[in-house]
């Protein structure tokens, strides 16, 4: 089950594509995006999410790939590394959730599935980046709205939306 709004998000430490560990920070607004390499929804929203990460210097961003790489080799750690390298780097770390424990802890359903946490680590938004993966003009508006509200100390007008994308590929 997806974490409820205002529930405390589980802490984590996961490796990025360079092998460096990253942990959920304390005292900082954070966006956690479960995503992957092989899903068309994740790919379609990817540039919009990266642009949000560039636009919000005061927010910590993490992209996390939780998919079972045995059944979906395109989501292997090596494939993640190659993708980031091919792109010349990303403005946010791309983390490998090999055990899938972080995705389970958050109750991630799809790639992408976006969570915005306040400075106390409580979930304030969960759902899709915006209303349509095919409309790049939407610019991840729901994610931006949630970040603006949380940074201003307010409740997001839309705290939850239905995540849309490929199901997280759980190990069998």
């Amino acid at each position: 089950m997806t974490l409820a709004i205002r529930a405390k998000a589980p802490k984590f430490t996961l490796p990025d594509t360079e092998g460096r560990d990253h942990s959920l920070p304390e005292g900082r607004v954070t966006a956690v995006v479960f995503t992957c390499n092989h899903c068309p929804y994740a790919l379609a929203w990817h540039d919009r999410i990266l642009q949000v990460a560039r636009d919000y210097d005061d927010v910590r961003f993490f992209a996390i790939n939780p998919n079972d790489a045995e059944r979906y080799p395109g989501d292997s750690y090596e494939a993640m590394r190659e993708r980031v390298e091919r792109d010349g780097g990303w403005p946010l770390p791309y983390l490998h959730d090999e055990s899938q424990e972080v995705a389970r802890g958050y109750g991630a359903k799809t790639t992408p599935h976006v969570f915005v946490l306040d400075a106390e680590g409580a979930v304030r938004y969960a759902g899709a980046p915006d209303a349509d993966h095919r409309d790049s003009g939407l610019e991840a508006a729901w994610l931006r709205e949630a970040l603006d509200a949380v940074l201003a100390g307010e409740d997001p007008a839309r705290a939850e939306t239905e995540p849309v994308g490929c199901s997280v590929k759980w190990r069998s």
Partner: protein
Amino acid sequence: MRVEFLWWDGCPSHPEALAELRDVLRSEDLDPDLIERREIETDEEAARERFPGSPTILIDGEDVIPHDDGEPFSLTCRVYRLRDGRYSAIPDPDDVRAAVRQAKENR
């Protein structure tokens, strides 16, 4: 003309893709009810049907968007590129229309 629509329920794109396929057929004066819908439910079925992902549209047995030879056949959402290069979970309707017209010309 034989129009087949192959889909997997684990990918949410199929209702929209089917609606767009029906629109394309209507716009080409073809009956949308001629679409044969087939749900792919297992990896074995995906391999047998040479199903590269959901949705897949075949016109007279030919994929409207030819897939790469190395692409695995499995239960997954299929990655499409729109004509402007953007990624999509649904094929570009203009590509589907072009495949329908080609099939009409080939008859």
